């Protein structure tokens, strides 16, 4: 049957239709690539056999609470699973579509080669070609499977939950149904419900301040210390360097918990010290002023400057000594060399990392949660659960894990995405491969 193909390219449509008709059909009928063709056909057969299940999955996801009466109590108890299984179904269908697309592309490519060479490849040739060409499939299979089920499905799920009423106490299975509610949660969060809107505004502003100040303070403190260690030519520089790295070396959970205790208002060591000198001490982490927020930033500075110090020292030593020689010959003094050569070079090279650090800090759960637990409690904390030092991620954590108000948690998660996506895209545009036009 392979002979029915023309080498002048006129059978392209024919190949296209066959390959679209059933996955792998073109490979078997036109090219005699039986192994590949049967493999593709099997994929489609399995897909078709499973399709009633897939349909059921989608149906349950779309209808949710509306069809709960048709099921027993046991099935209903897992109504929120329907959403997740719906997502998994969508991902499986998406994967199938990708394989289908690849099979059609493969058939068309094989036809192009056939036109070019005038004969079909033998089965063995095509198989060994497949092994080489399909390396990307084997190389990326673990990546895809893991990302699909542990990153994409969960994210799609929480994106969907933002449009449902899934929350304790009134919309939580098995007692009560989950329903699709459109943009209600967004409306409540952005103006509809005064308490939530106010809490949201407070947390959002603090998250941004936190991200900016935490990053900038660590960055410039790190730069300052690095400059002193580099320029002062002290005998003890290596000793100081090892000491200053320590906060970076200690796991952050531990250092935050230690600070939490040191700063404790009742029995903390810092207050004990102040009392030794006749003071009264402060409730550092529980005061209803901005003191806890300031302390978060201070402790973060303690933990964060070593990273930038290391980074700056690395970049400074990497600057070629020729540049300094040239500057010295031109009669520049130490300060001028530092101001016009070292500093701009170091800042230029570390700027992308400062941006990465900003996105890291916006999501820096541990630095807030282990220190203050998001506290102190404010007027609306009873209802919204957002404390004075809560940033968006810690608030999301409390809403989903502690309070099971999944719908509001999901709305906030989408918001974190909106804030951070531009930075991710900026990082992307900064990569070498993007700049060189390879991607």
């Amino acid at each position, binding site marked *: 049957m392979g002979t029915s193909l023309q080498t002048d390219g006129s059978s392209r449509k024919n190949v296209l239709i066959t390959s679209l008709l059933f996955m792998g059909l073109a490979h078997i009928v036109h090219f005699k690539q039986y192994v590949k063709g049967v493999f593709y056909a099997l994929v489609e057969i399995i897909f078709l056999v499973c399709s009633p299940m897939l349909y059921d999955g989608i149906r349950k996801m779309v209808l949710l609470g509306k069809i709960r009466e048709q099921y027993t109590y046991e099935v209903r108890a897992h109504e929120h699973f329907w959403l997740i299984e719906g997502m998994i179904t969508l991902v499986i269908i998406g994967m199938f579509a*990708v394989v289908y697309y690849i099979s059609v592309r493969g058939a068309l490519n094989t036809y192009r080669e056939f036109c070019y060479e005038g004969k079909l490849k033998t089965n063995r040739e095509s198989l060994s070609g497949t092994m080489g060409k399909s390396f990307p499939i084997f190389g990326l299979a*673990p990546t895809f499977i893991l990302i699909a089920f542990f*990153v994409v499905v*969960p994210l799609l799920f929480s994106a969907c939950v933002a449009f449902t009423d899934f929350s304790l106490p009134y919309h939580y299975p098995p007692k009560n149904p989950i329903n699709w509610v459109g943009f209600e949660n967004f409306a409540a969060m952005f103006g509809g419900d005064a308490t939530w809107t106010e809490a949201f505004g407070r947390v959002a502003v603090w998250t941004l301040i936190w991200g900016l100040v935490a990053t900038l303070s660590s960055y410039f403190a790190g730069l300052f210390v690095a400059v002193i260690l580099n320029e002062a030519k002290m005998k003890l520089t290596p000793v100081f360097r090892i000491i200053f790295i320590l906060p970076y070396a200690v*796991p952050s959970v*531990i250092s935050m918990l230690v600070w939490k205790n040191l700063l404790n208002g009742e029995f903390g060591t810092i207050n004990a010290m102040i009392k030794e000198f006749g003071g009264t001490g402060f409730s550092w982490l529980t005061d209803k002023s901005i003191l806890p927020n300031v302390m978060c930033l201070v402790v973060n500075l303690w933990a964060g400057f070593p990273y930038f110090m290391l980074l700056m020292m690395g970049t400074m030593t990497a600057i070629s000594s020729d540049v300094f020689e040239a500057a010295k010959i031109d009669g520049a003094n130490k300060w001028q060399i530092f101001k016009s050569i070292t500093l701009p070079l170091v800042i230029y090279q570390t700027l992308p990392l400062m941006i*990465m650090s900003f996105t890291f800090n916006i999501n820096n759960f541990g630095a807030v949660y282990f220190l203050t637990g998001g506290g102190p409690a404010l007027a609306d904390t009873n209802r919204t659960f957002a404390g004075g030092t809560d940033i968006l991620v810690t608030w999301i954590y409390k809403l989903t894990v502690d309070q099971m108000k999944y719908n509001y948690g999901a709305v906030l998660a989408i918001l974190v995405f909106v804030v951070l996506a531009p930075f*991710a895209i900026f990082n992307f545009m*900064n990569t070498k491969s993007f700049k060189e036009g390879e991607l």
Partner: protein
Amino acid sequence: MESQSTKSTVLKVLAYVFCIVLSIIVLYPIVFVLSGAFSEGTSMASLNIIPFSNGFTTEHFVDIFESTDYPKWYVNTLLIAFGSCISTVFIACLGAYTFSRFRFTMKRSFMLAMLVLQIFPSFIGMVAIYVILERIGGIDTLWGLVLVYVAGNIPYNTWLVKSYLDTIPRSLDEAARIDGANHFTIFMRVVMPIAKPIVIFLAITTFTGPWMDYIMPKYVLRSPSNKTLAMGLFSFIDGKKGEFTNFSAGALLVAIPFIIFFALSQNMMVTSLGGAAVKE
């Protein structure tokens, strides 16, 4: 000339003063934990503000080993860290090699998708992760947690390694291919050895991650004997339990290996941090 040297002496003294003050601030909490681990008493309130002035005892170490699951937590954390480190390095490097060396359908979309996905902290989709793990029997198991970590690590780290591999000339692979090596051999024997700095960097960051994480283990691991160190240590000083000295003893046994390791590898970290990330 004289004024110049006086000026530099003054500056040097200032630098010393600054560094000494900073050292005290940096060291105080660390020394306090060190002394807390060997102090008598249980809570922080019973400790003097001057470290090492509360007597000396090793009972807290005996206590955490005999009356708590501390050794078990330590082993669990080590297993999780090794598992997630080895799997992440292998999968991310293989993926990065594929992205760096092959052209294939939808490559650009895949790469952009990975970049966008790495923005999210993994606990955002925690409910779904829980359900999926439950379906494959991964709840309350260490491998379930490893799977979650590896999946969370992959998007960013694949990018990181890919950027590094892009700087390695392809002529090396081609030479090997002419000698008859297949793609996998080239990956293992040619590309990986050259990419050693970034592989080591990746191994370190993924190995240290699980030691500090609290959210995922709390959600995935249920039984007390499956706890990790972060959970266990937190439980010492969480809420009403104020066992600061036991906490210190436990924390010390975690922090010491970390600090030794960092002190030994700091030069390499400086070059990797500078080289790997800035190069992009």
